[in-house]
């Protein structure tokens, strides 16, 4: 599948999560952090569940992580995702508690805990998908 054929695209303008996608277009992995107490707010929400602050900011972190889990999808459920393909869950090295999803073509050899590195897939002028490759 070429990138231009991909039709399932993320909403990038949501008030709570848009900053993540804005960062992706700039080639950054961003996480939302409470400006009062530093708590990681993931999934991104405008309110800090730890200290009650509404004050937060997006922080760029290193695009490296560890593989938390993965699955090779062999039963196709969507026309845009021919099988086999692999979905990865990656724990960010620089932001403990933050985990992101990635897509890999085919069925690469993988192991839980292995290092992963971010890659930025420019889908169109508006959307860049952060992806994760074995490092």
């Amino acid at each position, binding site marked *: 599948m070429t990138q231009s054929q*991909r*039709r*399932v*695209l*993320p*909403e*990038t*303008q*949501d008030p*709570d*999560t848009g900053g*993540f*996608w804005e960062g992706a277009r700039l080639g950054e992995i961003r996480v939302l952090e409470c400006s009062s107490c530093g708590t990681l707010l*993931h*999934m991104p*929400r405008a309110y800090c569940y730890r200290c009650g602050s509404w004050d937060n900011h997006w922080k760029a972190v290193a695009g490296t992580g560890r593989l*938390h*889990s*993965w*699955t*090779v*999808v*062999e*039963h196709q*459920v*969507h026309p*845009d*995702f021919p099988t086999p*393909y692999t*979905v990865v*869950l990656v724990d960010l090295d620089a932001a403990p*508690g933050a*985990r*992101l*999803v*990635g*897509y890999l073509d085919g*069925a690469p050899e993988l*192991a*839980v*805990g292995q290092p992963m590195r971010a890659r930025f897939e420019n889908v169109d002028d508006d959307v860049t*998908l952060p992806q994760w490759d074995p490092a």
Partner: protein
Amino acid sequence: MSGDDLAFRDRCAIAGIGTTDFTRNSGRSDFTLALQASLAAIEDAGLAPGEIDGIVRCDLDLVRHNDLAHVLGVRDLSYMGDVSVGGVAPSAMVGQAAAAVIAGLAKNVLVFRSLNGRSGRRYGRSSATQSKVGGNNTYDEFFAPYGLLTSGQIFALIAQRHMAEFGTKETDLAQIALTCRARANANPGAQMHDRKLTLDDYLNARMIASPLRLFDFCLETDGACAVVVTSAERAKDSPNPPALIRAVSQGAMLDPQPGVQFPVLMRDTITTLPAKATADKLYSRAGMGPSDIDVAQFYDCFSITVLLQLEDFGFCAKGEGGPFVSSGEIDMGGTIPINTSGGHLSDGYVHGMSHVVEAVRQIRGTSTSQVPGAQTCLVTSTPLPPGSALILRAS
């Protein structure tokens, strides 16, 4: 134990149960299925349809309270409840019905779940049809664009992680599928009644989302189930032995995460479900523990879901679910026989409500895989987001 526990414990009972047939193509509307199951449950309770005065439905059901109230000839619809969400709802639906009875809001409450889950809306299909997905606190934008589209794929990621953390084997998952199939083979109403399943069949079946294969997945089903909840006192007059509602609980974990299902993959741990919190509360309210449970109906949208719940409900330690199931502990005669109708894996997926019906059969002594002398039955409705569960007991 608190006084609140005693205010609920054994005060209500399930007096009637009813189901439709479970098929791949009912040829009937969701409403017709709901009505057929409801009429059967009301008759089983020894009531006239007009005596129903409360109805509890699941939020995902297409059938509404008034749809049923009209055709049943309900004279005075006094209580209408909706419980979220999907497969998390069934035990809590019974709990809500019992709470309404105890509070005096209704006397005889019909609880139903109806779906054309195979021929109609299929939950195993991706719902990502729009050009842009996510936003509005669904967080789907972090998942669907990467091809993470179904509950089965979520549980595949969980199963892979459980294998890595604890050494769980594919043959452990197989044991759950085989056990449910053996129970279905004894149940003439089960969709898989006539089809044996061997370990070779299981291992040779196609992979859906690794490490989960075809028979790790439940049977998308057309069908409906209903039960009638009333006071323990009134239930004594019903034709069948009442199944007393010992306790009900709902629970979530400290970091439940938002959204419908995909963000659960962002929890600190993905190998413990909200089942843990739900179970702890349930046992406390019941004044019972795992060793007091004679038989259980575990929510089995997938095999791995059962394995996690066996751990979270305390039948074995966290991480030991694999060896536990592979040593026969969930079989008839084991520590905790499970899913005695065949479960969602081999009877039919009626989104957790068929488990409530089968639990009542166990308490009545009428299951096709009856646990001799069963006095207590656990029902779990604890897949991904929050959870609910209940314990029934004989009077």
